[in-house]
């Protein structure tokens, strides 16, 4: 029988449906009987959902307008070589 600690480390794989069926059933049964792990699972799902909404991204100082202009220039030169 799985304990709470095993359950925590597999929570990510459980949400990703990335587990062999026997393990998946084991976790499912643990979630049925353990309110804490069930709440933890819901919190974890909520975390994943929230992160995908907030969508944090890399801190970056690139001047994107300059980069776009540079690439436009590269494209122009590539085109004229054909």
């Amino acid at each position, binding site marked *: 029988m799985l304990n709470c600690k095993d359950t925590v480390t597999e929570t990510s794989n459980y949400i990703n449906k990335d587990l062999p069926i026997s393990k998946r059933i084991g976790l499912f049964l643990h979630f049925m009987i353990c309110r804490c792990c069930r709440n*933890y699972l819901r919190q974890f799902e909520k975390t994943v959902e929230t992160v995908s909404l907030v969508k*944090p991204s890399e801190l970056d100082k690139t001047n994107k307008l300059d980069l776009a202009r540079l690439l436009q220039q590269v494209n122009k030169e590539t085109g004229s070589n054909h």
Partner: protein
Amino acid sequence: MKKFFDSKWADQKVLIGELIKGDPEAFKHVVEEYHNLMLSVARAIVGQSIADEVVQDAWISAIKALPQFEGRSSLKTWLIRIVSNGAKSRVRRENRYVSLDDGWEAVSADHFDHKGHRIDNIEAWDDNTPEAILANSQLQNIIEQAFQNLPAMQRATLTLSDMEGFKIDEICNILDISSSNARVLLHRARAAIHHSIEQYQDK
């Protein structure tokens, strides 16, 4: 406004056609849309210091190869592949070593007894709707901060998986790591962000 901007370029064929034609707006759009994602992949593979250079090289080779882009994958996947290949060959060429976790130590928020049973009590969170989450700037800041504190490999794994929808096996190829590493990194990243939200919820 954002919606209009997005929908205009939703059709990839149109976007690529406009890029080849040299439409400045199309270039602004792709840089805006994909630059940080490419940077995330490069930072994870080659490290912070030369990531900008690697991404810039990737952009240039992508634009040069654009007329040959056949649309068998999405533009996003194609750009990621180019930056990933560029970063990997840079690592090989220069014998660079970038650690998976940069000495990361996860703060474990969970407490168990010697049998592995929980001794802390996990309560359900307030059930916020997506709209409520997006209206909560304090929560957004907390998530943003927790994300920035993660090592680059974890940020990239989380970004590719939970924000960009890549599967674990695709992430392994992109970041050149084993699938068990990818799973561990993803779990650590999610757990760290979960922990920061938990502290906020407990207040």
